């Protein structure tokens, strides 16, 4: 059976609610990935460890990105798009250019509900109001080389605030730093928007 959407099993974290909304299949299987039309990379764990566990399917994901399949990275899943991270050794997928850095000068981790400032139109934003709250839990954020891929940002910190990319989007590749599956109705809408992208 072919699944429209697959959710990659990174060995930690449970994605039953992502699964429920997208109807995707949780898998680690090369064939499933190559047959899928959309891929979701979920996001709990450590950059280095997760990249290591992805070794056997790394190139399937990279190929899918080149084949213009829709990809959605959530939290760490989005950070894995980039080349390197301060969190761990090893290379990321490199399907987007840039690095992943740790917060400095602010209480870390950044945990809780924060606003998404929509920088430009993005199919994932359909039906969602600008400056809506989403749930974040992370200590690292992405710094893309090409800032044109930043579709939305979020601001954290009182005295010396950091504005970081909370949504990136380049062609068929989408990444969100927050957890849509934990962001109540706005998050569910975003996942639904991803599901409804037509191929």
């Amino acid at each position, binding site marked *: 059976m072919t699944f429209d959407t697959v959710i990659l099993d990174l060995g*930690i*974290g*449970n994605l*039953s*609610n992502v699964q*429920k909304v997208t109807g995707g299949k949780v898998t680690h299987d090369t064939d499933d990935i190559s047959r899928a039309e959309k891929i979701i990379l979920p996001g*709990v*764990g*450590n950059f280095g460890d997760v990249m290591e566990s992805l070794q056997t399917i790394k190139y399937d994901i990279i190929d899918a990105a080149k084949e213009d399949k829709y990809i959605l990275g959530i939290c*760490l899943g989005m950070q894995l798009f980039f080349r390197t991270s301060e969190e761990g050794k090893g290379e990321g997928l490199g399907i987007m250019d840039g690095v992943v850095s740790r917060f400095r000068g602010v*209480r*870390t*981790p*950044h*945990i*809780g*509900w*924060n*606003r998404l400032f929509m920088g430009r139109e993005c199919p994932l934003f359909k039906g969602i109001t600008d400056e809506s*709250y989403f*749930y*974040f*839990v*992370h*200590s690292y954020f992405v710094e893309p080389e090409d800032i044109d891929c930043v579709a939305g940002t979020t*601001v*954290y910190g*009182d005295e010396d*605030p950091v504005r970081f990319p909370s949504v990136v989007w380049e062609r068929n590749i989408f990444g969100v730093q927050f*957890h849509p*599956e*934990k*962001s*109540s*109705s706005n*998050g*569910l809408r975003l996942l639904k928007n991803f599901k409804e992208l037509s191929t």
Partner: protein
Amino acid sequence: MLAKRIIAALDIKDGRVVKGVKFVNLRDAGDPVELAKRYEDEGVDEIVFLDITASNEKRDILKELVRTVATNVNIPFTVGGGLKDVDGIREIVRDGADKVFINTAAVEDPGLIREASEALGSSNLVIAVDAKWNGDYWEVYTHGGRKPRGIDVIEWAKEVEELGAGEILLTSMDTDGTEDGFDITMLREVVKAVNIPVVASGGAGNPEHFKEAFAVDASAALAASIFHYKKFTIGELKKYLDESGIDVRLG
């Protein structure tokens, strides 16, 4: 700006909510999933489940609970209570909890904090700390508040941060259950001592108490009974905080 979080706590025994919850209009007031969904609808930011099941079936009961909550609730939730090792902690996250908290096991074996934070990513590991003023300092207690440990809460808070904890859930045993307000002095000192988020717990009785906790920069504040007994709703509380100039997520 990051919103201050309001957290509802539920005590769970044998898969059921305990503590005489008096919710109206619920089919089953003891069903954790139904309660959690209700809190989500009311606009709570997060839910903490404290499992106090003592039976041999604890692991299976908890697993079932976590799985059901994860499938039905679309806001973050944290689970803890009697977790002792990395495998147990990993399993809870695998079943769907967003964060896990440990308390006694962390004091008995601080190395577990490092091990668990490496396994989960430190953002997902919460250290719950129970403390009480002993005349000289706020002393850490374990075993559900029964065992004094001779450890200063400020030193302990710094140590758990150093070992990789992502957040501290700080309960004052002096104020817990009083509804007279959080222990603001202790809270302020712990918040100042660390650079990770601190959740205030113990003593919330009215909306002003939440404002006081946020005024000393707690990242979140937790309550159980006042929400259960509907002394005021989460919506009313957030409206009050918003009007007081505090950033909260309004529904």
